[in-house]
């Protein structure tokens, strides 16, 4: 039992931060909800599948459950969170270096805004590849889709983001000149 808990501790230590980041991107920046869902995923793993799951599979299982939990959240009203998030943003204590914090926050929001424009399956596939460095085969296993769909989703997501970034760079460049 102790060794199982040790293994679980190791798994948690290794993947909890990454799972939070994945969920935060998926949920459009709702960090607290992302933490909730990440913890819920680990809890479900511990309760239902831990011990029966092959060691290498736990990570994929976690991402699959986390993604499903996130989809459930999408389906509920998104709007009810917006006001609350805005309140937190305005009321939160500012960082020691406000300028740097502002820039970082801007950048993050830009990334999140662009990610939000992608269809959900493309966004998940791209995040699993770019942030979690899963292979196409592993992504296919997490999402229960074929490798060729993973390939197409990732390519489309990248192309869409690339176009948006280029468009934005042009707009910002034009704005700076005028």
């Amino acid at each position: 039992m102790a060794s199982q808990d040790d293994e679980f501790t190791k798994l948690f230590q290794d993947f909890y931060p990454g799972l939070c980041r994945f969920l935060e991107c998926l949920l459009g920046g709702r960090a607290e909800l992302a933490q909730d869902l990440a913890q819920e995923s680990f809890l479900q793993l511990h309760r239902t599948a831990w011990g029966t799951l092959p060691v290498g599979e736990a990570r994929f299982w976690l991402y699959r459950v986390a993604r499903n939990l996130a989809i459930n959240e999408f389906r509920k009203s998104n709007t009810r969170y917006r006001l609350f998030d805005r309140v937190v943003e305005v009321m939160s204590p500012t960082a020691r270096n406000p300028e740097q914090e502002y820039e970082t926050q801007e950048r993050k929001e830009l990334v999140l805004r662009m990610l939000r424009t992608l269809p959900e399956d493309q966004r998940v596939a791209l995040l699993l590849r770019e942030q979690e460095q899963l292979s196409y085969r592993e992504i296919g296993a997490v999402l229960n889709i074929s490798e060729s769909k993973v390939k197409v989703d990732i390519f489309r997501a990248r192309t869409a983001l690339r176009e948006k970034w280029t468009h934005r760079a042009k707009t910002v460049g034009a704005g700076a000149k005028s």
Partner: protein
Amino acid sequence: MKCECTEKISLLVDEELSANDAKEVERHLLNCAECQQARADFLSVRSELSAFRSNGPQVSLRNELAKILAAGSSQLPVAPRRRSFAWSFGPVAAFATLIIASAIIALIFVRSSNKQPPANSQVAAMPSPQPVAPGTEAKPSPEPEESPRKDAQKGQTKEPKNAPPAPSRRPVPVPTPRPGEQFALNSEPVGPADAQTMTATHFEKSEILLRSFRNVRIESGSVAEVKYEKKRAQQLVYQNMILRREADASGDVQSSTLLENLEPILLDIANLPEKPTENDVQVIKDRVARKNIVPLLQVNSAALARALD
């Protein structure tokens, strides 16, 4: 005009092409400006996404893990996850909520229009808002959307379709750990600025080394002159190990993975014989190319440097 190879560039940056296809695409890349641009853009997308830092977890992982283990092993019914504003209020409460919400919107508007960095002392004194009052609602948490239709790999995944409702897991401030506590995890996902600076510099140095190694030329049948590269790799490999542990400990998965990929390459260069053959060098060069590590080092050091500016 759209080059038909752009999709293969996406596969190339993901190392999902076979060795032969990768070579072919790399040859194509030499002559196709459009694909070169696509690769740069795809790597830039990667850099943006991997540089994304989560706002959480900000509280002690130790505490969260302890709660999960306790809740998981107790098998008792646990409290549901808290919801946002309580929509289940009666009409009077809903009206009161509306008035409060209007006041908050007005406050946000006033604060946004006069947004100036407040003095640190005032900021520190300002309390953070509590998301919701505990126990405002008692709905069970959702089940996962659906279980995957079939197991992708044999013998795996007992899906949590009928798992019991999960507990509230909102992070709570945690006091300093008591001596003898079971878990010793870090609370910060990102390493200290010093470690980030060192990692950025390390990436830069490694990139220069790998570029230099890539340019080592060997006449057929002769031995290569790699004294400088060997010595440099020996210096960098120890630093790499330390930084990797640091990145692991601070939960910086991106840097940790890149350092992990870099380490065997540095070791191989450091352990090259005094007079390596063409084949010895070529094997490492191929690995560097296959892992696409030079552009990754470049984008990561740039991203870290940007974050530290």
